[in-house]
């Protein structure tokens, strides 16, 4: 079993060479590791490699994307398979697709400063989202036209949910 895995702008080729219980022999970009890998709690792995003890905590954001906490650092890690490769190439080709304004944090819609059809200038604030006593303003980067507004004031939104569609 092998895959490409993306971490920190690096695409690593990963292959499981053998596995017996929690002992895994794995190759990463040609470097071989003998790892003792145990999930000790839901999403928490204890890994011993050359007797070094590592604790890795995973949060899956979807089937192929993980947020990984190590002691010193956090990483976003993505498993690349045929499907995601196709999606990626498609995304790059299609530079004219409609843009969507969204918020990386969940929160509440405080204010919507535009209506459908408005022509907005680069830097104009479109929508204000509030969470945990902090308000964040979302602006357009270029001159645009407001195509669709998918939320209303007072709505509770999820992270990365489309809020306003522009074109």
């Amino acid at each position, binding site marked *: 079993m092998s895959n490409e895995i993306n971490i920190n702008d690096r695409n690593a080729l990963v292959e499981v060479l053998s596995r017996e219980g929690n002992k895994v022999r794995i190759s990463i970009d040609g470097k071989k590791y003998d790892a003792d890998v145990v999930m000790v709690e839901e999403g928490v792995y204890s890994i011993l490699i050359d007797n070094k003890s590592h604790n890795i905590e995973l949060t899956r954001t979807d089937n192929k994307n993980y947020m990984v906490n190590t002691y010193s650092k956090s990483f976003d890690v993505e498993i690349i398979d045929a499907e995601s490769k196709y999606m990626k190439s498609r995304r790059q080709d299609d530079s004219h697709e409609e843009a969507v304004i969204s918020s990386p944090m969940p929160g*509440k819609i405080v204010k919507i400063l535009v209506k459908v059809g408005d022509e907005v200038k680069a830097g104009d604030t479109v929508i204000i989202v509030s969470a945990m006593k902090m308000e964040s303003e979302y602006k357009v980067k270029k001159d645009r036209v407001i195509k669709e507004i998918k939320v209303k004031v007072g709505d509770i939104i999820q992270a990365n949910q489309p809020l306003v569609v522009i074109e």
Partner: protein
Amino acid sequence: MIKKVLIANRGEIALRVMRSCREMGITTVAVFSESDRTSMHVRYADEAYFIGPSPSAESYLMIAKIINAARQSGADAIHPGYGFLSENAEFADRCQKEGIIFIGPSSYAIKTMGDKITARKTMVDAGIPVVPGSGVISDEKDALAKIKEIGLPVMVKASAGGGGKGMRLVNKEKDIVSSIRAAQSEARAAFGDDTIYIEKYIKSPHHIEFQILGDKYGNMIHLFERECSVQRRHQKVVEETPSPLMTPEIRKEMGECAVAAAKAVDYSGAGTIEFIVDDNLNYYFLEMNTRLQVEHPITERVVGVDLVKQQINIANGLELELKQEDICQYGHAIECRIYAEDPENNFMPSPGVIKHITEPLGLGVRHDGYVYEGFEIPIHYDPLISKLVVWAKTREEAIARMKRALYAYKITGVKTSISFLNRIMQTPDFVKGKYNTHFIEKNSEFLMFPDKHETKIEDVAIIAVYVDYLDRLNNLQMEVHSKNEKKNWKNCGRRLNFNRF
């Protein structure tokens, strides 16, 4: 004597207050909004009353609802915690009218200290040093004249201000008018009041505050200082005591000054006098917080006093048992505030469900939190998850202990400031104790990009992810398999009968 206390708050501070109540044999009453039904303060309290929808303006800030819950429960006192109604003079008055003890100072003290210009005037009258500045600014001409008098740079501040809102730094003459207008408009939007004033800007300011305790008979003591200069967006991140800046002489002077300041408003209860201190140890009264502070535990640790119990005793009308000469600082304490936020993304709040938590344990560690696995941190309130407090004999050992505690503290599900705090503990300026309120800005490069590129730890992360992915893939495929079976089979089997009730 107080027998039942309603805690008009939530989160870690509600729990912290309830703990002391429990030790005193006092029954605790929680109040909770819609999104707090499963919150730990509801689970920990003896009783709990629902007070409305999640937005605090419709629940925790509704005086009538809080009073109603207090009446229903038969609570004889209300502890406001910090934030929410804790510095609301109307609430303190209302409690008094209802015959409920407000565990805090008089509404007079709240009101006087709550308005910055009145507070400033009161302090000047009491002989407390304040930052050179103006009274209320009547118009732009007045402002220009005052600024000429004080000398640039200056800060333009909102009289009703707080949390950095309605504040503008003015360095150049040409920016004066625009800054004043911006401050006024921001103040109007945030507080409904555009009154502003002007203060001399202190270039490398340290925020140092003194804890005070006063009873109803005029006895007043201070419990030494807390150094609170590590801030981001005017919000404290790390606090320590003693302050590495302090000398015994200045400490004594400032302590006496803090006591005098509190006496000037006949203060009773626990309060904090905040000072701004420059590099030459000139200190100026900044403001008074007429409530318990978030960072009170570091004081509790080095002086060995439970401040909440003191608050309750004072509210009970007891005389202060502590004398100034009995209070001393023993060892060193540091607090780190763990926020649900993303330090790598401009400290953006990160509410969500706690997937997994490992709490730090062991010698010299105090942990005041409220979240648990499966709990959803609501979007409506403060992002504070917990406070990690360590104590050690020396500052150096306390820093080592804090790093050790942060190492063991793990939370997944939401982004937190844990690793950012760890980096603060390693920043040379912090380690040397040479920092002011510009610390985070000044050290942003060290704080944000601390580690060299480490292939090894990346590879370990990859191994964990890949093993997890493959194991899940296996499970998933088995599941899909069984789902397909189900789908196809839909119409050809018997169904178990069961009653939903």
